């Protein structure tokens, strides 16, 4: 059990608690970046070099920035905790605890399950070539569908978040747009 792994494990747990329990959303965002960075490091230790870098690059570098962007855009903390009703919180907590208990027991019992002996890190450090070969070999179809999924998500996000100047009513053909433009011109003229 290398020291690094233990340290990383502890650090990750601490940062995760930071994410969950910090009051301000930006604080938790930063904690999340820390968690992702440390997870990347953890991957590197677990012979998944390429994955570590990709994780940091995509997760920490893009997704969380998106969240931070939204946080700053919305001034999210303006609507901090308002309503008093906290039942789901406590219930959630309790149930979460119970679930944790069950799952931990589950894991421990699982741990007894004889994991396949470590066949040496025949992994080759999870370099880009091997991963690439796997990705475009056995999992080509999955890779393509993920592409389609991302495209769909892109479209969805754009349409959802776009400022609705004109409601998305059916029949927004050319004529409809021209009419609206005429209405706008008339408005300006008045």
């Amino acid at each position, binding site marked *: 059990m290398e020291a690094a792994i233990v340290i990383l494990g502890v650090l990750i747990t601490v940062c995760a608690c930071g994410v969950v329990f910090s009051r301000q959303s930006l604080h938790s965002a930063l904690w999340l970046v820390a968690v992702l960075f440390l997870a990347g490091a953890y991957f590197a230790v677990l012979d998944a070099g390429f994955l570590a870098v990709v994780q940091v690059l995509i997760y920490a570098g893009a997704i969380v920035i998106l969240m931070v962007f939204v946080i700053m855009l919305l001034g999210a903390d303006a609507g901090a905790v308002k309503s008093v009703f906290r039942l*789901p*919180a406590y*219930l*959630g907590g309790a*149930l*979460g605890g*119970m*679930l944790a208990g*069950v*799952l931990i*027991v*589950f894991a421990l*019992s699982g741990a007894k399950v004889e994991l396949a002996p470590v066949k040496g890190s025949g992994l080759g450090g999870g370099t880009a070539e091997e991963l690439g070969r796997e990705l475009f070999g056995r999992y080509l179809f999955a890779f393509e569908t993920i592409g389609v999924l991302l495209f769909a998500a892109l479209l969805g996000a754009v349409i959802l978040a776009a400022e609705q100047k004109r409601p998305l009513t059916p029949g927004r053909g050319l004529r409809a747009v021209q009419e609206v433009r005429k209405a706008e011109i008339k408005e300006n003229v008045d």
Partner: protein
Amino acid sequence: MNYGELNQWFLREQQWALLLILAAPLAGALFSYCTISLGPRRQMLAGWIAVCAAFVSFAVSVCFWLFLDWSAEGGAANSGVFLFPWIAAGGLHLDAALKLDSLSLTMILTVTGVGTLIHLYAIGYMAHDHSKPRFFSYFNLFLFFMLLLVLADNLGLMFVGWEGVGLCSYLLIGFWHQQMPNARAGQKAFVVNRIGDAGFLLGMFLLAAEVGSLDFDAVQDQIAYLNPWAIEAACMLLLLGAVGKSAQIPLFVWLPDAMAGPTPVSALIHAATMVTAGVYMIVRLSPLYNAAPAVQFIILALGSLTALLAASIALVQYDIKKVLAYSTVSQLGYMFMALGAGAYSYAMFHLVTHAFFKGLLFMAAGAVITGCRHEQDMRRFGGLWSPMWGTFIAYLAGTYAIAGLPLGSGAYSKEAILWAVYTAPDTAAGLTLFNLVSWGGLFWGIGLAVAFLTACYMTRSLVLTFFGSYRGEGEASESSATMLVAMAVLIPPAMFFGHSRGIPLLESLRPWARQDLLLSQSELMRDDLYRALEHIALFAAGAGVVLMLLAYSIGRGFMMRLGNCIPERINPLCCKWWVDELYEYLIVRPLAFTARVLFFAVDRKLIDRSIDLSAEIAGASGQMLGLLHTGRIGHYLLIMLAGLFFGAAFWLVF
């Protein structure tokens, strides 16, 4: 075409002739109904069509009587015709077949004979009625069903006739259905008959189950092999049917109310033909009844009790038709006594004589009613002998016959029955329960009392209607010619048929008689016991007549005091022994009550409620489940987590 050729031709065509007897009234019914489309003036044509149809079937019956040898020695001649296989269900094979033997011959002769005369009488009686076609078509339809009942070769077909006759009596009783009492009387008749019919049906089913077939001959052959208790039960059930139809003790309430119908209906159906159907059915199944001594005793007891009851009620009735109705019931009681005593041929003999004089009496009563502008209460009559002398002669003849005065036809048949009852063998008379006196003697005493009472109420009605001074409004007028002719034709048989005992009637009914029965005039005369009983009966009848004549002439005051000592309301006789009230409180009220309870409690509360309840439950549960959707994401996640938790726990445990 001399007599011989006619005879040969008829023998060849006798099957078609038998069919014609049935077809004529049916055709008559259809055609007379068709005249409904003609104008009101020409609708009397329906009447004449009906009369012709009845006369045709009467004529054919007479031909049968003449051309075939009915004497017993030549082997009881009979002819039958097979129409079509009616029911073939499993083991039971019923086919529509007609059969004619001496018993059914006597029946169709009386039915068609009296029927034709009453049709003729009805033309006069219904002259001023508006729906003559309907009346005469029902009349002919009744005749058709009665003949079908009589000629049937098996119980099934007899039951069809039985029901048809019940239907026509309902239609005819309720003929003037505009007035509610008539309609209700019709309904009462029909319902009571149906109760009897139910018994008849059950009896039929039992017989079918036991014997496997309903033909009379088949039943007769199988009797020896049947289980005695089954025979007793079948006879009892069939007796219930006969009691319903022939208006005996438990089910006689409908006959007095049936007087609501027009008088020809009462004359034909409720005096001569339909009411005797029960008697005919028992005589037809006599071998079965001979094998059921207990039932015979019940019949004897039933008959005597009914006769006594009816006679007592008839004494105080003021409506002339009610008097005659109760007298019919008591005379039928007489016939049942004969059946109970095993003297089937004497019962048939009394049936025939009764048909004649009761038909005559009813026609006379009808004439009186039309004469006095449809007044039926005897207290409004009086002194009618001079204006309506024809009707008076007819009524006098009828009274003379029914009272059982010497040489009257009623006397001969009544004395024969009394003798048969007195000499009823204890075994035949059934159980000598108390061994005090042989049952025969007791019932003979009752029979004698009934004979005395019959004489009393008939002379009372004669005196109240025809003697004294006229108490009604307006002028009493003689009835029309057709009615008088019909009555005139019926007087001789009503009066003198008794002497004709010598005519082969009794001889021909031998197969149905007890062994020790005296069947010819000569045998009767030679038997000294018979001569003693005959004198006692004649003395009783004479006493009855003389007593009533004196009471109404001299003892009027005494009569008045006698009448007032028991107030009208609680006088058992006036209240008809409270039988109607008994039925009302014992059967009708509880039935109505349970129906109402069942409706409100069970149907309304239990069944409807349970259905509404299930609907409400569905609605309520839908409502409750709706609460689950609070719209808060937290709750949904919670539920998901709970599911996950229980899943994991479940997987972990098992």
